[in-house]
Structures are given as C-alpha cells and as structure tokens.
C-alpha cells in the first residue's frame, strides 16, 4: 500500500527501517524486520547508508515485500547516473514496490570507499521530478514508456539545519517536483521541530518526524558534533550518562516515547531509526502512538 493512501485516511503513519547486510547473508536483516511485523506501516530500506557498500536497497526491498512488509525503497543519487536511477525505479515498480524515498545521498567521502567516483548526475529534486514523470508514462528524455509505475514519492529534509531558509526553498522545490510526503532528519528537540513545521506546514504535504533511538551519551555527543542539524539536548545526554549500561535500553525507549508524544500533534507520522535496537520499536509504538 502506498503511504499516501494512509495519510489520506488521516492515519498517524509509523515507519521504521532496516539496513541491508554487508554481504549476502540476509538472515539478520530479516530477523530484525520481524520485530516490526504488524507494528509499523512500512519499513524503509537504506541505500548504501553512509556511503558504505552493502546489499542493494532494491533487492532488500523486494525480499521484505515477499515477507509481507511494505517497503520504502530508498534511492540515492550518489551511486547511479540517470539511466540507472530510472532503470531501478522501473525495476522497483515491476517488483511491486510502491513507496520510494528519493535522496541526494551522503558523499562517498564519509563511507568505506572514499576513492569512489560520486555520481550525482541528478540531484534529489531532479530525481523526484523524473520519478513523477515515469509515473506519468515518460522518461527523463521525454520518451514514452510501455507500462508505467505508480509510486508514492517521499523526500527528506533536515529541520535542524542552520540556516534553515535554503533548506525550505529546496523542500518546496522537492514538493513541486513530486514529493508526496516528507521524512525528517533525527529530531531530539521538539522546539526545533516546531520552528521548522511552522514554516513547512504551508506546503501542505505530510511530514514524518525522524526519531533516532539514543543508545548512549557518547552516541549523542558524536551526533551533535558530526551529524548536520542534529542537536541532542544536554539534559538527555546527562540522563543517559548517569545510567549503567543495562538500563540504557529502557531509558532509550522512554526518551523516544516521550519525544513522539510531544511531536505527535505537529506531524503526520514518525519514522523510527532503531540503529540495531529494533526490538524496542514495538514497545515504543504501543506506548506512544
């Protein structure tokens, strides 16, 4: 089912994600996904996340679809030129994948193949527009397709970016280009999200707030220093730092529940990024949603 149908029904949409393995053993990924069965509306499948080479997001999306999940196929512009992007979109449609999240993609500099040639033949706005054109029956060169896809297209935004206005200008372009929902970078501070959503709500597209499970104070500090737009408040860092390791999981879930409850009135759904703690997601969803 397309996520756009759920938003149209007024449902508070909950998504989570799995990362394909580095290698061909998919058992771990599928086992992780099992925690999400019947818990979330869709499962995002990351695309060579953080520019680290892994099993393809298209294949992993297909496997999840076969297992009865609703995958959100993440597609970045980093690794494919316009032929490959469009070809993968057609392949996704043929495999029954209905939701696609279109991203620029982290630069190869950050990943495990920093010597790779970054492609970026398209940017995310151009990718969205092309995906919409494919749904209209035409490719990026204007050629008519024999059979066309029907996707729900998503885009991402960083609500904590400073300055915010250039991001909002681009977000509006993404929506005009075809984005039907927006997923955000991790939010830890509802005030930051509120400031963003006040400006973005006029775009009239459902916004899904990104929730990353905080696993330790060290992880929070790392994100504050290295992940653009992420600001884990000191109060949360202190709460985590004061706890023994065995108590952190419980606390992490409690932080997520509180955050989702605070954000719920401001967004159309949440996207939970568990970073390995997928077993926490069912409890978080039942407590918060």
């Amino acid at each position: 089912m397309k996520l756009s149908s759920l938003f149209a029904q007024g449902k508070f949409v909950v998504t989570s994600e799995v990362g394909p393995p580095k290698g061909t053993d998919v058992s771990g990924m599928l086992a992780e996904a099992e925690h999400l069965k019947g818990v979330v509306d869709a499962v995002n499948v990351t695309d060579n996340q953080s520019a680290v080479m892994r099993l393809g997001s298209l294949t992993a999306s297909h496997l999840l679809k076969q297992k009865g999940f609703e995958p959100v196929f993440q597609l970045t512009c980093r690794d494919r030129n316009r032929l490959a992007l469009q070809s993968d979109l057609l392949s996704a449609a043929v495999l029954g994948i209905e939701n696609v999240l279109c991203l620029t993609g982290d630069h190869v500099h950050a990943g495990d193949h920093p010597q790779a040639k970054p492609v970026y033949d398209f940017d995310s706005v151009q990718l969205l527009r092309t995906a919409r054109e494919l749904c209209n029956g035409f490719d990026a060169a204007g050629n008519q397709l024999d059979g066309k896809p029907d996707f729900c297209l998503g885009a991402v935004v960083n609500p904590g970016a400073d300055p915010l206005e250039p991001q909002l200008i681009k977000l509006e372009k993404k929506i005009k280009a075809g984005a039907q929902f927006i997923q955000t970078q991790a939010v830890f501070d509802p005030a930051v999200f509120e400031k963003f959503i006040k400006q973005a709500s006029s775009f009239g597209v459902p916004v899904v707030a990104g929730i990353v499970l905080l696993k330790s104070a060290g992880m929070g500090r790392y994100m504050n220093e290295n992940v653009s737009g992420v600001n884990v408040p000191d109060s949360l860092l202190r709460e985590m730092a004061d706890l023994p390791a065995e108590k952190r999981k419980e606390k992490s879930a409690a932080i997520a529940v509180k955050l989702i409850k605070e954000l719920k009135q401001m967004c159309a759904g949440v996207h939970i990024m568990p970073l390995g703690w997928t077993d926490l997601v069912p409890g978080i969803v039942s407590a918060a949603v």
Partner: protein
Amino acid sequence: MIGTIAKPMEEIMPYLEGKDNLMVIGCNGCAKAIHSGGEAEVNQMVAELEKRGKKVIAAGAPERTCYIQHTRAFLEPLQQELNDCGAIVVMGCGGAVQIVRQATEEKHLLKHIVSSLNSIGHFDTVVPGTEFVEQCMECGDCMLNMTGSICPVTKCAKGLLNGPCGGSQNGKCEVNPDRDCAWVLIYNRLKALGELDKMQQYQPPKDNSKITRPRRAVYNEKTGTALA
C-alpha cells in the same frame, strides 16, 4: 590557470630507469605561477636528477608549454639535444606533456616523455603566488547567471543544482567543515541581490553531452569565433 603539483620522485624514477641524457621541460605559464614547473622548479629537478645519477643535457621552460608554437620555438635550437636525449621530463600540466609529445612527433622523433606533475584542476589565483582555488570545472553549460556568480557545479562537493543537501550546517560542507557550503553562499548572495526567486526555480539536470570528451574548439575566420 591549470593547477599542478609535483609527483613524488619515487613515482617518476622508475619511468627513467635505463634512460639517460635527459631533457627537462617546464612551463613558464601556469606551472610557474603555482610553483610546480617554472624555471626555479626546473632547476631543482635538474639538481635532483643529477643527485640520482642522471645526466641532464638540456633544460628550460617555454613561455607556455601548452601552446605548440612556444614549445616549437623552445625546441628549435635544441635539435641535437633532442636527438640525443633518452627521455624528456615534462614539468607542466597533462596538456603540456602531450604538446611536448606532439612537438617531438612533428620532428619525426619517437621519444619517451615522462610527466612529473599531477594536474589538479582549473584554478583561480585568489592570493597572488599563494592561494589558488578551483571555481570552474568547464561544464559547458554555465549557470552562474542563476547562482549569483558562485558555481555550485564546482564549489558544491556533490555538484547539486537545486539547493543545499542535508549535510550543510552553519554554512559549511559535510565533506569538509573547513569548506563553505556553496549553496549557502549562493543563498546569501541572491538574498542580498533580491534575487531569491532564482534559487526557487527548478534547475533541470545538466546536459552532459556538452562535455563529451575530448572537447575541441576551432576558430572560424568567417564568423570570428572559436566553435566547440
């Protein structure tokens, strides 16, 4: 200018194995400006090669080695040395290396040409003699009129055409926090110019057919232009 930087001698020396009576040709154009292949660096190279047991029979730097006429003029009085040399070390950009090759071929000579520099981009001099930055990558489809004279194709690490990526933070780039985010620079300038509408416009993908390599320009006397 074309930016160049010296290859390590350890990379160059194997190409000179078994070859002696060398010629060293620098470039008094770009390579001089960036201190990689002007007279001074040619003299250093000669000394280095001699220290490593090589004999250098001729050395110098044409005005601009990538202009065939300058290289021809430089080689004209060196016919004997050209005939005798075992290899020519070129301290110029990749273009200079190939122009030297062409100049030797014109003389029906088959010479080993060894490049001693790496070409690292089309550079602009922002602090004379000291600081050089890449600001144009010759995409063949210039969009500077839309972006406040700041090139996102070159100055954005991802070459994005429609605005900043999510990695932009505090005006800096996710790839290198010492580097400005090109799109924040563009945004600030367009805003100051009262032209933010230019940033709001959709920019279509680049026409990469315009940079199908190798590109070529031929001057047409009738039209008075060099057509690519």
